[in-house]
Structures are given as structure tokens and as C-alpha cells.
């Protein structure tokens, strides 16, 4: 089996600052990864780099078994769906929902040629699946976080992504939007053989089909491997610099803080 994503000692620098440092990571086709890390740990950079929206400074990347070629970037973007409101919010604002979704067809960010009627009908069908067909003419910035997320998912599915990258897709969603996302991911995992890499802030809501975990800290990989080896009490206490106990649950992991309650309680005890 060809390794789908292979990064060897990849650095991503802006000026003197390292956004990513010495990233070595392999992903096999169909694997489901959870990426966990604090804000600013490099998660969004890693995902936007894989999806062909960001440059890397050095190291080597192989995608789909071939060395990364910048002239192939539009092809990569069609094969790798990126759903990241924090990335797209910088670029998309007043664009209409329908044009954003249609732009997923070609891997660019706008529409660049006349859209065929089949493409238009398909885009509308996808918008219906994600419950945003009524918002199709609205500018992106007027949508709720959950609706923006749905627009970007719909955009990713204008193509047939072999790799889906979800950047904190679960944060800032209301209850209904979160249920819909969970259902969507369950269907995606069951019906496709695609790879899924999801950044989350909620390790207590990890669906069963995720089997790998990647922890990031300060632009570096802190730990990677099977989820049960990564989501362990010792690893996380060290990673978070605070004592926590982790218990496996039916869906995800329960984090039990050890000691912080007492620390805060001191406020009222002195």
C-alpha cells in the first residue's frame, strides 16, 4: 500500500518564527487521525500546508506516493478537502455561499469559468444535504459558525476528496449543528475509504472510528501513534503540564483534572 501522506523533517517558517518544526509523519490511505494541541501549536498550518494552501520552508513531502510538486497544487486541492473556518475566514468574507461551494470544483478560491448546469444542480444538491440551501446567495460573513462549516464541507464535496482535513470543525457549534456533524462523520467513515484528519478541542467526543492520534505543541509533534497509546494519563499530564487522569469512554476520552480544583479553591480559603 502506498503511503498517502509522508512528511520528513518539514519546517515551515515565517521570518525567523517556526510555525512548524521538524515534522515527520506518515499517514496511510483510509486512516482516521485526531490532531490535538493548544491554539498556536501549528495544527491549522499543518492542515493548510497538506491541502496546498501554504508553503513549507524545507524538508520533504510526498503526497499520494509522489514527491510534492508545486505545479500540481491545484490537483492536490481537488483531492484533499480542507474544512477550516480559521483559514478560510482570512480569505472569504463577502463571497456568496454558492460561489464558495462551486469554487471547490477547481481547487481555486473563486469561480474562474462558466459553471455548467450539471455543476450548478450538484452544488445545490450538496447545499440541501448540509441544510444551507436557503442561504445560497448570502455572503459568508453573515452566516453562523455552524453554517460556515457546512459551506466549507459542501465545498470540499464538490470534488471527491481522498483526504478530508477538518480543522476544529466541532468548535463553536450549537447543539443541532454538532449532532449533524457527528452524523455526517459517521456516514463519511462508513461509506468511503477516504482518509480523515480532524483537529479537535474536545477529546471527550471522539467517535470510535478514529484510531490514530497526533499531539502538537509549539509547532512540533509531541506524540503520535495509536489513539490508546497517545491518550494516556502519563502522556497527557506531561503534555498539558498539569495532572490529569484519562479514562476511555464509549465515545472518546474523559479528562479528569487532578489538583486544579484545589488550586482554585485556595482563592476562597485564604
Amino acid at each position: 500500500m502506498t503511503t498517502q501522506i509522508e512528511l520528513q523533517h518539514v519546517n515551515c517558517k515565517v521570518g525567523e518564527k517556526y510555525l512548524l518544526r521538524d515534522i515527520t509523519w506518515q499517514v496511510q490511505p483510509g486512516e482516521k487521525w485526531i490532531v490535538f494541541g493548544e491554539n498556536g501549536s501549528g495544527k491549522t498550518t499543518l492542515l493548510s500546508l497538506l491541502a496546498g494552501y501554504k508553503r513549507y520552508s524545507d524538508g520533504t513531502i510526498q503526497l499520494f506516493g509522489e514527491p510534492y510538486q508545486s505545479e500540481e497544487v491545484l490537483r492536490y486541492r481537488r483531492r484533499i478537502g480542507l474544512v477550516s473556518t480559521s483559514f478560510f475566514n482570512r480569505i472569504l468574507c463577502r463571497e456568496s455561499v454558492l460561489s464558495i461551494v462551486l469554487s471547490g470544483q477547481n481547487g481555486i478560491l473563486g469561480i474562474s469559468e462558466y459553471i455548467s448546469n450539471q455543476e450548478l444542480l450538484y452544488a445545490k444538491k450538496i447545499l440541501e444535504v448540509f441544510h444551507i440551501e436557503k442561504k445560497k446567495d448570502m455572503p459568508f460573513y453573515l452566516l453562523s459558525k455552524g453554517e460556515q462549516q457546512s459551506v466549507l464541507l459542501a465545498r470540499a464535496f464538490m470534488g471527491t476528496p481522498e483526504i478530508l482535513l477538518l480543522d476544529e470543525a466541532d468548535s463553536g457549534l450549537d447543539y443541532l449543528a454538532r449532532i449533524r456533524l457527528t452524523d455526517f462523520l459517521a456516514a463519511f467513515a462508513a461509506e468511503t475509504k477516504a482518509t480523515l484528519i480532524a483537529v479537535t478541542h474536545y477529546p471527550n467526543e471522539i467517535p470510535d472510528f478514529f484510531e490514530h492520534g497526533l499531539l502538537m505543541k509549539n509547532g512540533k509533534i509531541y506524540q503520535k501513534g495509536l489513539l490508546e497509546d497517545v491518550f494516556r494519563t502519563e502522556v497527557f499530564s506531561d503534555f498539558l503540564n498539569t495532572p490529569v487522569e484519562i479514562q476511555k469512554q464509549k465515545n472518546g476520552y474523559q479528562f479528569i483534572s487532578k489538583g486544579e480544583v484545589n488550586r482554585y479553591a485556595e482563592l476562597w480559603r485564604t
Partner: protein
Amino acid sequence: MTEQMNRIEYLRQRKQHCCCKYCGGLLEIRRVAFSEQDDARVELYCPRCGKIEFGVEKEIYAVTEYFVEEMGFQCYTDIENPILQKQMNIAKVAEIISWGFVNLGYCDENGFRYPLTIPDALLHEELNLKRDKWQAYKEVHDNDDTD
């Protein structure tokens, strides 16, 4: 867009005969994403609206604006901002007219395929003025380059 035609060249040509379907302003080619490839980083952009915009033929915008203003076309009653509301109405009608023109074979990626005869009723002073303005803009911006 023909496969042989470079995307950037296509965008350059398009910004000459098209305008923003929301505000009617001139489009420019702007870098919006990081990539080593120009193809993957530039888009047609309306600086007035601050958005990526494919545009419509300028003549279509002109008759559309007339239609929305004079006939009082309104399909976005739930939008509160009157400027946004008007722009979205114009964009919607411009989209419909463009769709019709393309599907009837009157228009393709390179613009109109047949000479236009716009009825006198639509060629009111304002529209003529706008045509002159476009021509002036076109001359000024002909040398615009990609960002």
C-alpha cells in the same frame, strides 16, 4: 476557458469586458492565497466589495441595474441592509440574464458573440455615462498586472 489558454491570460481578458455583478465596479487580478503557482494564487477580485468575484459582462450589469431600479425588482425582502439588498438583487438578475445568454449561445467566456443593439429606452443618459466611464477605466487599467 480553453485548455490551451493560460488561466492568468484568461483572467486578464475577462477583467476587460466584465465588471462586478454586485456593484458594477471594475475587477482586478489579485493574489488571494499562498502558492508558488500564479494559477493557484490569483483570482478576479472586486476591490470595492472586497471579494473574489467572477463578474458579468458590463452591458448585462447596466441593463440589470436599470431593471432592478426602474422595475423595482425585489427578491431579498429578509435582507435589512438596503445597499446589500440592492446589490444582491442586481447580482441575482445579472446571473439570470447571463445564464440565459450563455445557454442561448449569445455569450461565451470571451464575451458577446454577436453585436449588441441595446434599445434606446435603456440607453438613458446614466447608462451612456457609465459606458464612457468604463472606457476611461479600461484605458487606465489596461496595464494592471497581477499582484
